[in-house]
């Protein structure tokens, strides 16, 4: 059901355009640095086009197709020519991979470009495992982690097993599953500020499921969910640490976690 077929011929030393994503760029550059390290470790050359800002979801998901298309064109142009385009988010990459094409039905030039981009675009962890064939990482993370499946990555891109498989190769890490790991955390882009009460309850249910595992760290592959869950954990006085999975895989989770204070 998922169109996730890897290309037949794999470039050994591909040039990868990093789609940073706006939240990573603004909130947590360490996630992008981790992504660069993981990609470079596979032998890829990483480029970061300066002309990128956001994938356009805020406009797209609020029905503003004019602005959404303008931003999509900007992304399409900025990332032409790379062997692959990779980003540390199932949500943004799902948009590029599945929702750009839908927006250019009446624009043959950009439809073709959008299809071309979609075929080259991947979410980070699934790119590492499915395309570059990474089976393990040589890093250590001491702790018990639980993994939240972000909705877009899970349902639009079919990402479920990949992060778990590769996390199990991190030394010192033990993975424990939470109840309803595949149920939405209540982020939903602008949903979370339009309907804060409903969103807060969904986040709260997620926090309870996390606590019930006894894990000391929460991981996920999408910063939107992570900011929402970390914010709610903090509000509830819960000290569970929160990282993006890329930070742990790259051995770069030695910085403060999301929403963690510094003395």
């Amino acid at each position, binding site marked *: 059901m998922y169109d996730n077929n890897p290309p037949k011929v794999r470039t050994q030393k591909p040039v990868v355009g990093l789609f*940073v994503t706006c939240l*990573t*760029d*603004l*909130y*947590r*550059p*360490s996630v*992008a*640095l981790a992504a660069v390290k993981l990609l470079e470790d596979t032998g890829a050359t990483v480029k*970061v086009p*300066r002309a990128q*800002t956001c994938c*356009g979801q*805020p*406009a797209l*998901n*609020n*029905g*503003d*197709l004019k602005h959404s298309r303008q*931003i999509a064109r*900007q992304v399409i142009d900025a990332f032409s020519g790379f062997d692959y385009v990779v980003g540390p988010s199932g949500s943004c990459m799902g948009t590029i991979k599945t929702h750009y094409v839908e927006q250019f039905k009446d624009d043959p030039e950009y439809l073709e470009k959008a299809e071309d981009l979609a075929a080259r675009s991947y979410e980070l962890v699934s790119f590492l495992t499915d395309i570059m064939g990474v089976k393990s990482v040589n890093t250590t993370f001491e702790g018990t982690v639980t993994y939240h499946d972000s*909705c*877009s990555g899970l*349902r639009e891109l079919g990402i479920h097993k990949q992060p778990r498989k590769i996390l199990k190769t991190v030394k010192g890490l033990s993975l424990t599953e939470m109840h309803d790991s*595949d*149920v*939405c955390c*209540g*982020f*939903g*882009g*602008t*949903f*979370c*500020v*339009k*309907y*804060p*009460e*409903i*969103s*807060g*309850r*969904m*986040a709260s*249910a997620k926090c309870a499921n996390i606590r019930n595992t006894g894990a000391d760290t929460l991981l996920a592959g999408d910063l939107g969910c992570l900011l*929402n869950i*970390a*914010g*709610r954990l*903090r*509000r509830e006085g819960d000290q569970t640490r929160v990282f993006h999975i890329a930070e742990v895989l790259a051995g770069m989770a030695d*910085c403060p976690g999301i*929403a*963690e*204070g*510094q*003395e």
Partner: protein
Amino acid sequence: MQPRSRDFKALSAKSMKDESLQGALRQLETGFVRARRDSASALPEFEALRDQARDRLDDVLANLDIHLLAYEQKVKSQGGHVHWARDGKELCEIVSKICHDAEAKKIIRGKSMIGEEAGLNEALESDGFEVMETDLGEYILQLSKEGPSHIIAPAIHKTKDEISDLFHEAHKAHGLTERQSETSALVAEARQVLRQAFLNADAGITGANFLIAETGSNIIVTNEGNGDLSCTLPRVHIVTAAIDKVIPTLEDASLLLRLLARSATGQEITAYTTLSTGPKHPDDADGPEEYHVVLIDNGRSEMLGNEFREMLRCIRCGACMNHCPVYGNIGGHAYGWVYPGPMGSVLTPLMVGLDEAGNLPNACTLNGRCQDVCPVRIPLPGLLKAHRVREFESRLTSSLVRYGLAGWAWLARNPVIYHPLMNVSMRVMAVLGRRRGAFRWMPFASGWTDVRDLPAPQGSTFQSIWRKRERGDS
């Protein structure tokens, strides 16, 4: 039923404080979600059946006019009558006239969402008819004067205690004075009261899960058997159904029935699957003397020609709402009309207007769990987004959101300004939020900070860090 979808926020706030409702909603997981998962995984061809059903229904919808006429022809050839209603009001008028002409005073109803959509009970009662619901859930709601909160479990929000009180009060008139508190005793009492109503009724009104063009039959699925009695005991049987219920053959019905019960309740098949075909024939032992089908459009023929066409595949199983985390927190009444959850959030704006129901397609995280379980693979999140596009294009979206998006989009399309501006902003926020690592409150961000902290950024943006790194490298 007067739509109240405009009040979605207030209604959902009320629902979230309602402890007995919250208790009932917690049962969704065990009652429906697990049951569906178990029964779907027990049928190896389940996923293939979903594909087949989607494709078959798309074919059917492409020729719906032909199938509708064939169905009408078949019903007529067997002595039945077919009536066409443009909307709920017309449906009520037609049903009322049929009952009036047949001199039917006492009417029993089998569960039908079309009846709810059209406000049939209220209309018939105001025309002087005596109407009684016979589906247990609907009967409870008739006593409590409420609308359904779920399409297949309409009284899911009611606790046993509340039902005990309702029955105790209402059944006194039938000489049943003792307050019952056990489920089995409550069911037995309802059966006793309803049985008399079945026997006394002049007309029975049911819905239809499917209408079969090749035989002129209607199919209803129930777990209580009230559908059978409503079809066969009264002298007049009236079927109220929407035009998208027509399918060509019994073979099609068998495909869809295999998906319906599994998706709805996790049953392989419901306890009763009832086919009724026309009035009683001379050599039949029983059955109605008159058989009427009232087909309602109510915006569906328009959907056939627009971006919402796929919604017409819906077979009303309720799986989307059972799996919706928003529905799971607020229940069905918060949606403000008869259809709740994801399918309701697509249908309601089409039937009562986007200006009334604009909240519904927005109150969704686009998590896609509904689409994942929809037996006929309706792209529900995509259809909700289509409503948002309509809303934006007809300027129903608030000006705050519109100007906000325009300003943000302008910035996003000007990276030369965006990057340095964001870098400075993030560095300031990082300094301010460094100690706690998060903000309890942030101006203009109360939607976020009312219910959770806003994590503080790390400092410089990645773009600025990368730029330095590139300059250093070169």
